[in-house]
C-alpha cells in the first residue's frame, strides 16, 4: 500500500472548501473528510486520524476563534495529526498558544496565502512532516513586540533571515526566497544565533523553536 498522507478540511464557506480540497489534493494528500464547523472537524479527526487538518479559524456558531480551540484540542488529543490554521487575520497570541504545548506540526497562515498555490503546498507539506509554518505577518507582529535590545544589533539582511527562520523555512527555502546561496544563509544564521545568544541546532524545527522562543512564543 503506497503511503498516501491523508487530510481533513474544516472551512465553513463552501466556495473556499472546494478550492481547498483541490489544492490539498494537488499537494498529494487524500482528503479523508470535510467539515463545516469545529464539532464536525473534531468528529472527523477522531474517525480518520489524518496526518494533517486544514482548519479555518472563524467558523460557526460564534465566528470567532473556534478553529484555534479545535486545533488545540487536536494537538492535545491526537498529537500525530498536524494542524494548519487559516485565518482572516493573524494574532501572535494564538501562535503562542499553538506552539506552547507541542513542538512542530503546526502551521498558522493568512487565508489569502492559499492563492499562492506552490508556496501553500510547500507549507502544507512542511507542517504535515512535523515542521512549522508561520505567516510572515505573524512573525512581523512578533518582531513589533520585541523591537528592542539584542534585535537592534542585527543587520537588515540578518533581520530578513531571522523572519524567514521564524516562519519555519529551511536553509534552502530561505536561500531561494532571498536569492542568495545556501552557504551565505548559513553564515547569516550563525551570526544571528551568536548575536542573540541562541544555541546552535541542526534540526530545522528545533532552530525555529529557539527563534520563536526568543521572540517570546512557545516553550
Amino acid at each position, binding site marked *: 500500500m503506497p503511503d498516501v498522507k491523508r487530510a481533513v478540511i474544516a472551512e465553513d464557506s463552501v466556495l473556499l472548501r472546494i478550492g481547498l480540497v483541490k489544492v490539498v489534493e494537488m499537494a498529494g494528500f487524500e482528503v479523508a473528510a470535510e467539515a463545516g464547523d469545529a464539532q464536525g472537524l473534531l468528529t472527523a479527526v477522531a474517525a480518520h486520524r489524518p496526518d494533517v487538518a486544514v482548519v479555518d479559524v472563524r467558523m460557526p456558531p460564534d465566528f470567532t476563534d473556534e478553529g484555534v480551540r479545535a486545533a488545540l484540542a487536536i494537538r492535545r488529543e491526537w498529537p500525530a495529526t498536524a494542524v494548519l490554521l487559516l485565518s482572516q487575520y493573524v494574532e501572535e497570541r494564538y501562535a503562542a498558544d499553538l506552539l506552547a504545548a507541542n513542538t512542530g506540526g503546526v502551521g498558522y497562515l493568512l*487565508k489569502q496565502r492559499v492563492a*499562492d498555490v506552490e508556496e501553500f503546498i510547500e507549507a502544507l507539506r512542511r507542517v504535515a512532516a512535523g515542521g512549522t509554518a508561520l505567516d510572515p505577518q505573524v512573525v512581523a507582529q512578533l518582531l513589533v513586540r520585541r523591537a528592542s535590545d539584542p534585535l537592534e544589533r542585527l543587520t537588515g539582511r540578518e533581520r530578513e533571515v531571522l523572519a524567514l527562520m521564524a516562519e519555519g523555512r529551511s536553509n534552502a527555502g530561505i536561500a531561494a526566497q532571498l536569492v542568495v546561496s545556501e552557504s551565505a544563509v548559513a553564515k547569516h544564521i550563525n551570526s544571528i544565533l551568536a548575536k542573540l545568544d541562541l544555541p546552535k541546532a541542526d534540526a530545522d524545527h528545533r532552530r525555529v523553536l529557539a527563534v520563536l522562543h526568543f521572540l517570546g512564543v512557545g516553550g
Partner: protein
Amino acid sequence: MTIPPRLRRALARLRRDILFIAAGVPLHLVSPLLFTWAGILLARTLAATSSNAPAILPAPLALLVVAGYGLTETQRWRFRALCGVDLPRLRFTEKKRQFGYNWLVGPLLGVLEALLLALAAAGLAAVLILVWIWAIPWQWRIEHPGYATRATLVTLLGLAALAAVPALAAGLVRLENIVGRAVLGVSWADELAQRVEDLTESRAGAVDAADAERRRIERDLHDGAQQRLVSLALNLGLAKATLTDLSPAAREAIEAAHREAKEAIEELNSLVRGLHPAVLDELGLDAALSGLAARAPLPVRLRVDLPERAGTAVEGVAYFVVSEALTNVAKHAREATRADVTVTRLGGILRVVIADDGMGGADPARGTGLRGLVQRVRSVDGTFWMSSPVGGPTMMSVELPCPM
C-alpha cells in the same frame, strides 16, 4: 351691535385672567386651611382640652404632605389650561420647591387673588347701588342713602374699582407667572444641563450606531466579497500551477489575473482594517494594534499596557487614531526611521501616544487625515495634543475618557 376687536380681545383676556385667579383661590388656600386645622388640633392637644385631638392630628399633617406634592400637578394643569404655560414636571426629590410654592408662596398669592375678587365683587355691588335702593323693600334697608349725592358717589367709586380690575388682574396673572416659573419652573442652568445631557446621550447613540454599522460592513465584506476573492485567486493560482501547456499569451493573462486578484484581496483587507477589523472586537486593542504596527512600512515599537478591555467605542477610536497616525507617519513624516506607539490607562483615561523621529512640521489644521482623527477623538469627549516642530520630532497624544 358689533363689538370692536380690541375690546373683544380685552374682554377675552379679562375673562381668562379672572378664571385663572378664581381657580387659584381654592388651590392656594388648601394649605392654610390644613395648617389652621393642624394648629387648632395641636393647641387642643397641648391644652389637653380634647381627648381625640392627638388621634386626629396626623390627618391634616398627612394631607399637608399630600397637598405639597399633589397641588403641584394641579397648578401645572392650571398654568397649562388657562395660561398656555407648560411648566416642567418636577421630580419627586425636588421637595423644597414644591413645598415652598404650595405652603408659603401659594397662600400669599391666594390672599392677593381673594382680595382682587373681593374688589371686583364690591365694585359690581357699588355700581348697582341704585338698583339695590329701588329693588330692596324699604324696611330691609339699613339706612337711606341720599339719592343724589351719596348714591352717585358710591356708583362712581364702583365704576373706578371695576375699571381697575382688568389691569390689576393682568398684573396679578403676570406676577403669578413670574413666581410660578421661578419656583416651579426650570432655571436656565437646569435647562442647559438637561440639554447637555440629552445631547451627550444622543451623540453616544450616534457614535455607537456608526460603530455598529462599521462592524456590519466588515462582516458582510468578510462573508461575501473576501471569500469570493480568495476563492477566485485560489482558482487562478491552481490554473497557473496546473495548466502547463498554455500559450505564452494565455499564461500571461492568467498570471496577471492572479496578481490582480491578490491585490484586490489586499486592498479589501486594508479597507476593512481601516473600518473596524474583526480582531478588535474579538481580541481587543492590543492584538489589533500589533497587526497595524507590523504592517507599517517602518519599524514600530508598540507598548500596550491595559489591565482590561476598554469600551468598544473607545477601543474603536483608539484603533482609528493609531491607524491614521501611522498612515500619516508613513506618508508625510520625512526621513522618519521609526515610530513609537504607547497605549496606557491612567485611571479613567486611555492614553495613546504616537511619536516618530521624522522632520516634523505636521499641522492638524491641514490634511483630512488628521482632521478626521481629531473629529473622532472629540466624538467621545477625548482630547488631542500634538507637537511637531520643524526639524522634528513629532509627537501626538490622545486621551480618551473610559469609565472604569
